[in-house]
Structures are given as C-alpha cells and as structure tokens.
C-alpha cells in the first residue's frame, strides 16, 4: 500500500458499480478529500459479509432489512440513507400475461403466476431478489420455502428463501447478477424484476439491446433505497472509521447529493438523492 496515502475500502453491490455512478462519485471524493477509495463489488450478501468480517471500512448496499440487521448486530455503526432508484417489472413486448400498464407489482406477479408465464428470478439473495421475495409474499399466493441447513459457529442454522409454490418450469431461479438475468430474460422471452439502472444500460447502451419493455412500474413497493454503513470500529479495530465517516459526510453533503442527482446514464437520471429529504416523489 502506498505509504501515507489514505485509502478507504468499500464493499458494494455489483449493480452500484455497473451503473457507472461510482466512476463519477469516487474521483470527485478523492479530489475533495485526498482519500482514495478501493471498491470491492460483490453480491449483496457477500458485500455485507465483507463488512461483518471487517475486511472493509464501509458498505454501500441496497437491502434495507439486512442493512438494519447489520447495524443491530453491532457490525455497523449506523445506516445513512444516500439515494434511491426504483425497480421495474420487465417483459417481452408480446406481454403474454397482460400486465402492461399495471402499477400494482403484486398484481402483476399474480397474473404472471396465473399464466405460468416464464419468469426469471435472480435468486441470489441480492437486494433485488430480496425485494422480489417481498413482492411474492404480498401477492398472497401460496409460497414454497426452501431451506438449507448450514453449520455456523458450531450451531446449525437454516437459510431460507421463498418462491411461488408449484412454480416448476416457469419460474427460473438463476442465482446470477442483474445483467445476466436480463440477458436470460431476453433470451427466454420471460418476465423479470430489475433495477432501472441496469435495465437502461442493457436497453439503451448496447448495439444489440435486450428486447424487454417496462411493463409495470410506479408501485411504492418497487422503491430501491441505498444506504451506507460504516463498519463498527469496536468490532473490528483495524478499520478506518474516520475515513468512513469522512466519506459518509461527503456523500450526504450537498456536493455528493448534487453529483448523484446530476448523474445521467444515456441521458436518463438514475438515482434520486435521499439524504436531505428522505422521500421524494417517484419519477
């Protein structure tokens, strides 16, 4: 490590990195503060795990419930809201389940299930997947719960996830990142739940765009909030809490928020700052 240089290590989700936002934020932060940021992008679960193991100084993810648990368990000091964007339900233009224009996400999923139309699920315990599971729970449909028993710290623990019961061949749980999920949904002419940022990249940023359309959006349940949490220095004495707080302060400052607001991907705004006014209207 370069001597004397201040380096902050941050774990984040692949979607944050893939959106390109970090490429705008981090150089600006480094310029303002002299702190370099090492970004380690992973699945949400693995990113939070990095925080729990004390390998990073700060985590920047979008899985509200798990973030709060992270803080509750004492791994992080506090969750600071940073920004949000939203999820959309995508599908082929032919829309076999007929969900176009719906703004009730749960209702849309119910129709998909009723038609047994192909649905690609990320199935990777990511923020997006967590949200999808919440939506399925909201449909009121019978759900199947999958459990894996693992041994952790000597004791057995169950890990579970849900999906619609009897989903068989139409519900494809693929355990991959957003981009790959979109690619597969495109190939399979299937529905899927995606964050808007990745969708825009895949829809408008490529020579061969994914042939999927936004069929359902605007449900408050589709809101996707990002938070940043410094790792608790009492739990992991080696971490740089000072640098983490410096970054958190910068990110939630007017400068950081303005950069987020001003970020355009292919001419479209992707993120809405959250730090000052906790909730803003939907796009």
């Amino acid at each position, binding site marked *: 490590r370069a001597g004397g240089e201040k380096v902050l290590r941050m774990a984040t989700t692949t979607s944050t990195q893939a959106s390109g936002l970090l490429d705008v934020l981090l150089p600006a932060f480094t310029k303002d503060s002299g702190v370099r940021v090492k970004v380690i992008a992973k699945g949400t679960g693995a990113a939070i795990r990095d925080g729990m193991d004390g390998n990073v100084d700060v985590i920047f993810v979008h899985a509200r419930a798990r973030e709060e648990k992270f803080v509750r368990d004492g791994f992080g000091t506090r969750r600071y809201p940073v920004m949000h964007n939203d999820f959309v339900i995508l599908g082929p233009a032919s829309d076999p389940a007929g969900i176009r224009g719906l703004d009730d996400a749960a209702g849309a999923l119910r129709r998909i299930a009723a038609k047994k139309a192909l649905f690609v699920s990320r199935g990777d*315990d990511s923020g997006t997947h967590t949200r999808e599971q919440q939506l399925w729970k909201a449909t009121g449909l019978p759900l199947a719960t999958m459990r894996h028993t*693992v*041994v952790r710290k000597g004791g057995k623990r169950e890990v579970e996830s849900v999906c619609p019961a009897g989903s068989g061949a139409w519900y494809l749980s693929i*355990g991959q990142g957003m981009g790959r999920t979109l690619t597969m949904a495109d190939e399979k002419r299937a529905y899927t739940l995606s964050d808007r940022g990745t969708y825009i990249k895949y829809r408008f940023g490529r020579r*061969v765009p994914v042939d999927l359309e936004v069929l359902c959006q605007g449900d408050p349940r589709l809101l996707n909030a990002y938070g940043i949490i410094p790792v608790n220095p009492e739990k992991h004495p080696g971490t740089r809490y000072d640098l983490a707080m410096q970054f958190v302060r910068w990110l939630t400052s007017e400068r950081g928020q303005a950069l987020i607001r001003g970020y355009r991907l292919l001419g479209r705004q992707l993120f809405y700052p959250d730090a000052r006014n906790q909730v803003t209207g939907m796009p």
Partner: protein
Amino acid sequence: MNFLTDSLRSALLLVLSRDPEMLEIVGLSLKVSCLSTLLAALAGVPLGFFIAFTEFRGRRLAITLLNTLLALPTVVIGLLVYGFLSRHGLLGSLDLLYTWKAMVIGQVILIVPVVTALTIAAISRIDDRYRKTAMTLGAGRLRTGLVIFREARFGIVAAVIAAFGRVISEVGISMMLGGNIRGFTRTMTTAMALEYDKGSFTLAVALGIVLMTISLVMNVLLNFFQGRARM
C-alpha cells in the same frame, strides 16, 4: 479453524440429507464434465497425435497457438458461444442456450487445447523406435498411434485428468451458457458461486468439499482401472 470444521460438517449434512436437489446438481455436474472430457479427449488426443507426427509447415506455429489457447478465458468462450447460440445468433434456432448442452459445447472448447497440448508433450518423449517398430511390423497410422498411446498412456491420462479437473471446477462457462437455472442447469460450481455471492461461505465450501470428494472417487476409480489394465 472454525470455518473449516463448520464447512466440513455442513458438507456431511448435505451428503447425509440426500437432498434431491443436491443430488440433481451433483448428477448434472458429473454428466456435463464427463461428457465434455470425453468429447475433448476424442478430439484432442487424435489431434495431438496428428500434430506430433505429421511434418507440415508451421507445425511449431500450431503448437505455439495451441499453447496460447490454453489461456483462453472462460468469459471469451462464454461470449463467443453465446454469440452463436443466442436468439440472434447463427444457431439460435436450435434453442441450445441455457441448456446443459451449451455448457458441454463451451467446456469442450475450453479443454480441447489442454488435452491436445499435453498429449503432444506426452508423446514427444516416446522413443521414436516404438513408432518405427510398429510400422515395420506392418502397422498403419492407427495401429502405430495405438502403440504410441500405450507407451505414453500415463502422460495422456494425466492430460485427460487435468482436463476433467478443469471442467468440473470451472464456473464461468457453466454460468454463462448454462445459466445456473435451479432445477435445470445448476451445477456444483455455479451453486457454489451463488452461495458465495449470497455470503453463505460455509455452504459454498461445503459444496466444494462434496465436489472434491466426487473428484477423488473418480480418480480412485480411474487409478484402479488403470492399475488393472497395466498389470
């Protein structure tokens, strides 16, 4: 190492539970890896013999290219095969993408260079007199090849084992071309990658232990048969 013992116990639980999903995953992994290895061996070993024993201009270049292909990243293979198999691709109509067959295609491309290059290396040190003796006794190209094969079998088997190890532990191609679809194309390695992404490291390593056990069993079987054949 708490972590390791945790993983070991999880692995044991996994195996003991005989979870049907788990069995399916293991089965698919084996099917895909074995088939890929078999096809790659059928293509790569003869190709290696051809390159080793045929005098042609640019033979050395061919070997260099082959060695270069050993560094072919899985992402590239995945994307190339994807390009062909995707809906917009040349072979899109076959509807192979996200099936185990696509994985086999990708994996074969991955390991044919391995098998070929190592076969060439294995037969390069076989005394030329074996070839001459076989030929003078009337053997054609095929029989001569079989003689060399017998003499070089240890090296060739090592090449095939290396290739098998490569594919059964391979994740990129399986992920990109198979899609890691639960119940369809999820293999041990893609499941591991998934568990890793989820942060369930214990389960990931547990799966890894299961994988290593299976690979061990395969190797013991192979060793046994080789041993018998050698006699």
